């Protein structure tokens, strides 16, 4: 099924309208609007300072935008402006129906808790109380992200960067969230390690039908994962469309520059 077909048949999962955020006199992001559908992967590209990280922080509820609205299709109440949610409601959403994958795995996993414990935390936080089942689920997820089960009880600080990042993904996806935010998920990893991570991610996203918003400056990442693409410059979205269209036929000079500056994959 193509992204366009998905769009036509499903209701909106995340509806973003006119989101702006500035810091003092500096623009973070300006008047950003888009709609995300279930199972859709949206890439946001731009160089550092283009406002993509600010936008992601606003979307994930970590930063309050100055203006605009962000509505999410919650399981219980349908479309709800996430800015109107109380802190506990937002935190609950963030640990059940959402996932957040940080660039640095240290920000997203507990380094002093075993890999199994890291994966088990979300299920336990929503009431799982059967050790055997929690552990079986941890094993299942370690398999999915291609981490050797012999490492189940090891602490992530003994893991390589790529393994840590895959563990972070497993820890987030175990509750089968419907939306995952990813901030430069391949940042700081070797190219060979990146390839494996992207492979795992692509498999999971398609298998589980998870919607994702991926912020990155790496066009290879979006080409592989994203159905749709937004290009940001100086806080604004300057170009958007289906990923292949944007990358193969960029209209804006900035996008053209961005595309020509990387080797084609």
């Amino acid at each position, binding site marked *: 099924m193509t992204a366009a077909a998905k769009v036509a048949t499903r209701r909106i999962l995340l509806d973003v309208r006119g989101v702006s955020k500035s*810091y*003092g*006199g*500096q623009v973070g992001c300006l008047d950003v609007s888009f709609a995300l559908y279930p199972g859709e992967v949206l890439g946001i590209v731009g160089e550092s300072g283009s406002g993509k990280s600010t936008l992601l922080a606003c979307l994930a509820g970590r930063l309050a935008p100055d203006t605009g609205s962000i509505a999410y299709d919650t399981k219980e109440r349908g479309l709800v402006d996430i800015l109107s949610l109380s802190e506990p409601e937002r935190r609950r959403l963030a640990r059940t129906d959402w996932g957040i994958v940080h660039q640095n795995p240290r920000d997203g996993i507990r380094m002093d808790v075993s890999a199994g414990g890291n994966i088990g935390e979300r299920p336990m936080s929503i009431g799982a109380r059967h050790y055997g089942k929690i552990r079986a689920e941890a094993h299942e997820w370690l398999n999915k992200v291609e981490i050797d089960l*012999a490492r*189940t*009880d090891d602490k992530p600080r003994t893991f390589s960067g790529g393994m840590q990042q895959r563990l972070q993904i497993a820890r987030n996806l175990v509750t089968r969230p419907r939306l995952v935010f990813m901030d430069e998920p391949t940042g700081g990893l070797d190219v060979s390690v990146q390839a494996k991570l992207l492979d795992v991610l692509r498999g999971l996203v398609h298998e589980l039908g998870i919607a994702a918003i991926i912020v990155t400056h790496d066009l290879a990442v979006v080409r592989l994962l994203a159905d749709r693409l937004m290009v940001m410059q100086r806080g604004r979205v300057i170009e958007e469309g289906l990923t292949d269209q944007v990358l193969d036929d960029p209209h804006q000079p900035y996008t053209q520059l961005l595309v020509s500056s990387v080797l084609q994959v």
Partner: protein
Amino acid sequence: MAYVAVKGGEQAILNSHKLIAEERRGDPTVPELSLEQIGDQFGLAIDRVMNEGSIYDRRLAALALKQARGDSAEAIFLLRAYRTTLPRIAVSEPIDTTQMTVRRRVSATFKDIPGGQLLGPTYDYTHRLLDFSLAEGGSKECLETPNTELPIDSDLSRVLDILDDENLVEQAVSHHGGKEPFDLTRSPKRLPAGRDQRLQNLARADEGFIVGLAYSIARGYSGSSHPYVAEIRLGELDVEIIPEDLGFPIAIAEVTVTECQMISLFHGSASTPAHFTRGYGLTFGHCERKAISMALVDRALRAREFDEEVRYPAQDEEFVLSHSDGVEATGLISHYKLPHYVDFQADLQLIRKMRAQTAGKQSPSDDR
């Protein structure tokens, strides 16, 4: 079985109290210390005990030191426990240190300051050579300091107020917005804390802890730049209250205080131009080390206010406020001496179980 349950703890406690009384008194052929002697000749010890004991009473502090055999931590504890039972009859007016009868005043920022630098009593330029004449009962000669030629101004403006005219230094906040200042002795600490709560905490804090933190700041474990002593002043001040039925201030006591104002360069932000920021220290008595350290830590704890990243212990409000109180720290550290038989028994059982398990494993387990 040759076991006898240990009893007689009560008698042991009573005996222990007799023993400390005996040790406190020492050799009965040596004359006993009087509170006057302690108060006069161990003045700096008194000052520290009053600061951390949070009560200005030289005689009580001398008594506490005598009872504690000179252990300042114990003396501070005694004073605190006494202080907490005292009624609050009135709340004093804020003191105004420009009205101080100054005995010492130095600035590291300007050579000449209006009103002049006044070295006053300080160990700073003594060579730390033991004075053996003190061992033989001290010098018999009359110890009278020559009077200075020039009279000292009665109204000495603070050095920072002079710089303030150029707007280079952040404005000092003179009143707490009309609000009652926070009182840690009546309310549990509240986080995030206001500067009032932090300063009260620092004023009562263990001197060693605060000096250590200040040292870490000086060695670079803080975000801010090189600090300067804008001014240290030492002297006497009246404490005034306004009784309800009178309606005007009356002096109820004279106190000695040390005040320290530190400044450090702040590079400015999008909204504010570069300027000097302040750190403030105030202590009872003559406690310069504490006052300087307090000012340094005060400034470091203002990190959030200046959008500085909180990276080091001295900048971390919850860390500093939770661990600075000497009485609390001493209590918890010494509680390890209390019996823990029950918990230890539980630990013993556990460790035996763990070891039995390890010994029972012939082959390495597959889930490790």
